């Protein structure tokens, strides 16, 4: 019909996008205004956690190959997005991770050996103290988004100054629960931060096939909530944006949606995925040049805050931590069906009690 330029209407949103960045690929500060309010020591601390995550990724992969760990979704390449965001959060904030977000969960307070037990498929990995504000990694893509809205509303009703934060990937934004989560949080003005870690692929399906939207951040427009796209290979930008989002949400302004542009260097999981089937070597190389660790290392080197020796010593420490955690992991007791049965209900019905008795007897044999 004459008189309506639909492309122009669409471009009202599409044309407005900027990707927030603090450090460029060579570790130069390109946005002083957004430089985080962190001391040099704190920035070193942030970088050390990123190295920790990279080492954990490598060791987890090896431990999986040796059959000592089970499920693992590789994290290398996503350290700025994952660790940069976690670094901005408070201990009492409530984290709802997806299955690739184990590093944030551990940094939030889950003992590493419990993360390993979760990977192996042991219930003890999910036994969280009552005051640990976290849920186990979510498997159902999107479920954590609607739950985050609920937890954020609960925090608000209790008058808490804390926030709920959750993660999904680019594919996750196609789920109905993604929209329901951000929309509910918006409608209730609940303190939730929704992070979309856009690593370009939902297993093998490229981002372009998920949606006609130009960015995933702009999906916040429909829910009427603030949204921002961040260079997910830039830990300082991630920290600054997450910190600002946290302050905004905690102040009672409602939720924020953050899209991070990142890349996973490895496969989707270690269960047979081969990225060569859907990614080119050129593309992988292009992203490796944006490695979040290299960028931070270059920045710290220039300031004389880090060195090869320091990194070597730290890596050794991390490896030791992992070894110690594995000792605890391998000491975990054999799981019992009778315990599983006891865990289903608070008030155990007679039908279950009968089965508890049966399995308890079997287990004693």
């Amino acid at each position, binding site marked *: 019909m004459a008189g309506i330029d639909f492309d122009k209407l669409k471009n009202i949103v599409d044309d407005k996008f900027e990707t927030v960045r603090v450090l460029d690929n060579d570790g130069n500060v390109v946005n002083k205004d957004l430089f985080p309010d962190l001391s040099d020591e704190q920035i070193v601390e942030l970088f050390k956690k990123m190295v920790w995550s990279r080492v954990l990724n490598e060791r987890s992969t090896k431990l999986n190959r040796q059959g000592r760990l089970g499920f693992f979704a590789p994290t290398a390449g996503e350290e700025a997005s994952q660790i940069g965001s976690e670094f901005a959060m408070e201990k009492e904030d*409530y984290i709802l991770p997806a299955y690739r977000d184990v590093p944030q969960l551990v940094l939030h307070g889950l003992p590493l050996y419990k993360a390993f037990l979760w990977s192996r498929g042991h*219930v*003890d990995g*999910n*036994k*969280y*103290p*009552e005051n640990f504000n976290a*849920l*186990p990694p979510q498997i*159902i893509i999107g*479920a954590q*988004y*609607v*739950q*985050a*809205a*609920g*937890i*954020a*509303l*609960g*925090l608000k*009703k*209790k008058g808490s100054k804390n926030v*709920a934060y959750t993660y999904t990937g680019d594919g996750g934004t196609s789920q*109905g*629960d993604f929209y*329901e*989560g951000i*929309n*509910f949080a918006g*409608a209730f003005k609940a303190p939730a931060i929704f992070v979309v870690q856009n690593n370009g692929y939902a297993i093998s399906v490229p981002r372009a096939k998920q949606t006609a939207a130009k960015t995933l951040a702009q999906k916040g427009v429909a829910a009427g909530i603030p949204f921002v796209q961040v260079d997910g290979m830039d830990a300082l930008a991630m920290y600054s944006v997450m910190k600002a989002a946290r302050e905004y949400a905690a102040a009672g302004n409602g939720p924020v949606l953050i899209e991070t542009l990142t890349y996973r260097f490895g496969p989707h999981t270690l269960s047979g995925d081969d990225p060569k089937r859907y990614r080119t070597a050129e593309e992988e190389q292009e992203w490796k040049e944006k490695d979040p660790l290299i960028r931070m290392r270059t920045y710290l080197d220039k300031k004389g805050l880090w060195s090869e020796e320091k990194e070597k010593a730290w890596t050794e420490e991390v490896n030791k931590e992992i070894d110690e955690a594995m000792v605890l992991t391998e000491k975990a007791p054999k799981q019992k069906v009778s315990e*599983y049965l*006891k*865990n*289903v*209900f*608070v*008030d155990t*019905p*007679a*039908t*279950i009690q009968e089965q508890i008795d049966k399995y308890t007897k079997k287990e004693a044999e």
Partner: protein
Amino acid sequence: MAKTTMIKAITAAMDEELKRDDKVLVFGEDVGKNGGVFRATDGLQEIYGEDRVFDTPLAESGIGGLAAGLAFTGFRPVPEIQFFGFVFEVMDSIAGQISRERYRMGATRKMPVTFRAPFGGGVHTPELHSDSLEGLMAQTPGLRVVIPSGPYDAKGLLISAIRSDDPVVFLEHMKLYRSVKEEVPDEAYIVPLDKAAVKREGSDVSIITYGYMVQESLKAAEDLAKEGINAEVVDLRTVSPLDEETILASVKKTGRVVLVQEAQAQAGISPAVASLIAEKGILSLEAPIGRVSAPDTPYPFSEAESTWLPNKKDIVEKVKEVVNF
């Protein structure tokens, strides 16, 4: 104490629990100012405020996520699913999340959530409003599924459900909302979960049923009595887990069983009851188990409801067949 309807008894139960425990939250589509499409939450927002009785955006999965998140943060959520036919939209929250959170987290958390929802045929709804989907819920470990058959039980069972630290799916048959009146105490009282009730004592045959079919079965029993057949009517009340003791005691007493449900033959709770009797009560049986249920089609177009839904006549016929075997 006054004679009242099931819908009023349900409102009274929520009123009692909102008053008793400030962690109780009632929410869903239209439950606030409007008081619910059936008026189940009528007047509650006025008394307890928008913080505790509130409307949600129109999205069942979001309501489920809200329930989970609120339970994790220490509340006792009582979400309403406007019609249980919409449960498919919230299946993950119920069956994939809330029912297994305690198990998943090694008993370190509890999920005191009561999902309420109207369901049931005979009131000429559009499709996906009336379906009997309790079987789907009953096959989900970690859930209790409760279906009252009248006002007295509805109030006591709903209070028990809300006080329970485990998740409950509480299904309210629409035809029962205003068709049956019973004496209902004004104060709070408990009807225990996991316990069936013998609604009519009998010696010749056990009619084991739940929900609206309890009413049809009681009417059938009256008719049968005139023909000299003394039927016992067992109301399951909590349809999952089953009260095996009460069921098996009745089977032992009468030796003959007719399982009655509004759900399709392949669905519902009767298959589980039949399995229980086959496993633990078969030596008491003097005849094959009889079944009255709906045909295995999706819920019918509403004009054909009355030919599709099981009724008193079907029950009388089946009971005679089993008694005369």
